[in-house]
């Protein structure tokens, strides 16, 4: 590089030609403007030197910048990943299946709980009814005086009335209770 070139390069090209000089080097300048620019460069050493410097830079970048390639096994690895994903069931389908399973579990628990409630009510009704019948035989008139049984009712009627009352109380309690998984699981 001679010193006069360095000097003109340091000055830079004509300001209004700078952008076009880069486009000319890229080969993307519109033909009419390219012709006018070439004519201008015949008389302008600054633009001529700048165009030459851009050309050198362009060649350096084209040959000097890395041009990496994908690994030869890229496609195989990608296909393996896709195959792996295909094995995983669709997310929406998985959620639907889990919800179905959850609903079935709740239903089963509810059925089991209903049977348990019936048995508990029967047991509790029997105990309370038995106790009342026992009290009536040991202290006749006591339950009547407390207003717990109707006057003149017998032991069997007392027992069944108590049993029915306990069943009704259980039924009312479970009807008001929200049927959610935690309540079903806790009991």
């Amino acid at each position, binding site marked *: 590089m001679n010193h006069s070139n360095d000097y003109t390069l340091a000055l830079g090209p004509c300001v209004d030609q700078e952008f076009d000089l*880069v486009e000319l080097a890229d080969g993307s300048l519109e033909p009419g403007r390219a012709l006018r620019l070439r004519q201008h460069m015949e008389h302008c050493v600054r633009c001529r030197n700048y165009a030459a410097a851009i050309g050198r830079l362009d060649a350096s*970048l084209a040959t000097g*910048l890395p041009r990496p390639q994908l690994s030869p096994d890229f496609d195989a690895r990608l296909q393996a990943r896709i195959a792996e994903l295909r094995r995983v069931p669709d997310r929406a389908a998985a959620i639907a299946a889990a919800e179905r399973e959850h609903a079935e579990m709740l239903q089963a628990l509810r059925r089991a709980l209903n049977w348990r409630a019936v048995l508990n009510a029967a047991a509790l009704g029997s105990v309370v009814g038995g106790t009342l019948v026992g009290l009536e035989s040991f202290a006749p008139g006591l339950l009547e005086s407390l207003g717990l049984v109707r006057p003149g009712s017998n032991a069997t009627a007392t027992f069944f009335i108590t049993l029915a009352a306990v069943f009704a109380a259980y039924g009312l309690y479970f009807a008001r209770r929200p049927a959610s998984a935690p309540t079903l699981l806790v009991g």
Partner: protein
Amino acid sequence: MDAAIEGHLAAGRHARAFDLIVPEFRDRVFRLSYSILKDRASAEDATQETLVRVWKALPGFDGRAALGTWIYAITRNTCLMELRRRRPTVSFDDPDSMEAQHAATNIATGPAGDPEHDNLLRLVAALPANQQQAVRLFYLEDRSYEAVAESLGMPLGTVKNLLFRARKRLMELARPEEVQAA
């Protein structure tokens, strides 16, 4: 090729469409990833990740955007996520930042006897990130402004301006060395 892909997509044959998408787009996705991440291994990982995302999202592709535009947008997002994951990183976004000035100084006063190739890479590394990306991609895409604009999702004029400023800056950075060498 695009018509064939679109045909399969319209018919809901996503797997077959994907089989055509991979050979059609993988290299450009890789070059775009490389221009952003500047590292071959990371770019290859990002390419894999992008294509897996494309495979997952293909049934939802509605065709409102061109397929390439959609795929390159996924690529850029994948690379940006990778860059965020790498934090903290040095940013050259602002050419007047301390880091950029430091890099430029290092280049101008770099150790004597460095191969020309290393100098060129160091000059490019001193550019702001968006200019670096445009320059790398421009030469990877065989000097196609249109390909760079499509990959980066930018208007053609913006790409031309970025490349113009990048090369102007490279000339300025290279000049002290040229003068010293003269």
